[in-house]
């Protein structure tokens, strides 16, 4: 029996080894949990930016496709619409409101050109964000 136990004392885990391993594991887990949180934050930012980009693009291209004349009725009158993005993040639903403001106005130099501007605003954990697209439209288009 003694002969059998002797090699066992040289193998297996001692207390110090277990403590060190556990400490490293815990440290890594805590660190990675933090990274995963950042990762999720980045993903959410990407998603929000993607939504904002698509909103701004679609609104502006819709207005451009409508042509110069279609802007007359809404000249200098901001067109605001709010869209809610509903996502499921780690089991819970999160709503993000996107406020889209479209403004058309005549050029200060010539009314033959109209300035079209779309601004999308939303709020993230880090604070308010916005994205602005703009272009001009000539009267014959």
């Amino acid at each position: 029996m003694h002969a059998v136990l002797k090699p066992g004392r040289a193998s297996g885990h001692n207390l110090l080894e277990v403590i060190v391993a556990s400490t490293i594991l815990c440290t890594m887990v805590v660190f990675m949990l933090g990274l995963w949180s950042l990762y999720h934050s980045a993903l959410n930012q990407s998603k929000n930016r993607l939504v904002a980009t698509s909103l701004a693009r679609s609104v502006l291209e819709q207005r451009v496709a409508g042509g110069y004349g279609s802007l007359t009725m809404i000249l200098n009158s901001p067109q605001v619409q709010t869209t809610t993005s509903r996502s499921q993040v780690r089991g819970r639903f999160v709503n993000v409101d996107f406020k889209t403001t479209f403004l058309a106005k005549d050029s200060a130099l010539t009314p033959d050109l109209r300035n079209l501007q779309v601004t999308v605003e939303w709020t993230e954990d880090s604070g308010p964000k916005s994205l602005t697209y703009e272009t001009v439209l000539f009267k014959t288009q």
Partner: protein
Amino acid sequence: MTRLKKIKRGSALFLILAIAGVLALFTGAVGIGALTNLQNMTREAQDDQARFMAAAGIQAGLARLSEPRSWPTAGSPYGRGEVWSYVNYNYAYDHLGLWSSSRPNLHAYVIAYNNTPSAFERTATGPDGIAIPDGRILLVSSGIYDSDSARRSTTVAALARPAGISFDKAVFGAAEVRVLGTLVDCIDSNVAGWTPASYAPYNLAAVPVRGATIASNNVAINSIQFDATTKVDGNVYSGPNSPLGAIGYYGGTITGTDGSLPSAKDTNNVLPSATAITLGGGADAIFPTGTATLAAGTYRVNGDLLLYAGADLVVTGPTVIYVDGDFRATGAKLNITGKPSDLQIYMTGGPSTVVDMSANSQASILLAGSDVTATMVDSELFGAVLANKVSLTNSKLHYDTAVSTQFFGSSAWVTDSFLNQSTTQQLAITIPSGGPPSDPLATSGGATGGSSTGTTTTGGSSTTGGSTTTGGSTTTGGSTTTGGSTTTGGSTTTGGSTTTGGSTTTGGSTTTGGTTTTGGTTTGSTTTGGSSTTGSSTTGGTSGGRPPRALCCLDYSCGPPRCMLY
């Protein structure tokens, strides 16, 4: 006992370290993927902003082309209207720059390559050798997004065409031209004191002017037909790539050459002016025997325009008449004391309407109706005729060479087509260096406005990084897969609605998403997803011998923008 033997001292630490290493690598990869995706989204937004700015440049270019014509001169080397060429009086590139009013880091740069007869310096090729069709202007616009950390650019190129009518031919029938027993020669109303009464016949064979061109877009046999007594002091062209026999001379003589048009001629329909004065009380406008005087202006006849024998219609200045019905003159006179350009008649009633001049009618007019059939028998006309079918019999048509390079009916220019992506990727805009002179457009309220004064531009600038060029419509979603996670972006643009989704699957957790938004109709869109292509390059430098010139400064050294467009 066997189990105890297999466990070595220190193996737990090694195992934990290995697991931690794998987790760290996995987490790092996922994190890099997420950050890359975020960067791609940011770049996509910047590309979009540059693309919309480039599109704005095209629109600003059209606005400048549509201004009233003003030739470049030594004192004012900037052309206006369609004579805004790719070079100015000083043979320097003629540019148009515009800055966003709200975002100084957004701007566009436009160059026009002009292949119209009125070009200050005509060119049939673009910057990379691309062919510019006859009568078109190539607008190349680079939209540039500048920030401290990134510079993105997008180049858009479009062919522009005039919305108005060019009377560059004496007689043009899109489908058919018949000239029988008729003389077609030239006059020049720009000669001081010219009136139709001062016309004197000249010897076509001895002193040909060769300015009265007859043409058709048709390629069929006998699309253009003469007879033995027809004489034409100019060239004759049938439709593009027409076969032998498309022009039937039958003994008729011309002083110029014949052949095929390089491209089909535009036959734009002029739209009636909304402010035109109604003539004829909303029905036919009838001019019986006697003299009637019309004050210079714009008129519209909702019915027929009828001039009977002995009628003499006089205009006091430049006059435009839109005719929704027929135009018939029988033994009548129209503007027979004035220049042809002083009385422009546009047929706006469609293919069921006709023009009929007969019984020694005389007119000094420019007549256009791309859908109508115009017939002239035993009559005389100073000016030019454009119609679907033209028939001249035993008549005289004196083409006014003074109108050959102008556009009538509308000075506007519109986009004819956008160049596809592969083509525009090859286009490059060269930005001149040197001190920008004062911009004359600022003082006259032109499309580009603003002024360039004060700062000197040196060295030029370079544009690097990705560039996305848009032509027609392209939709590309963005998708990035990193490690074990998948981030799927994507926006789909469809006819009636826009749906933007997004789902993220990460490790064991799931973030599903999805945002649905409505957008209405979206057309002509280009969406770049993450990746971008190289496109425009912007380089500096001054061409040797050419005086440096720039309407706007595009260099970082310029400071705040000074060429505010809107």
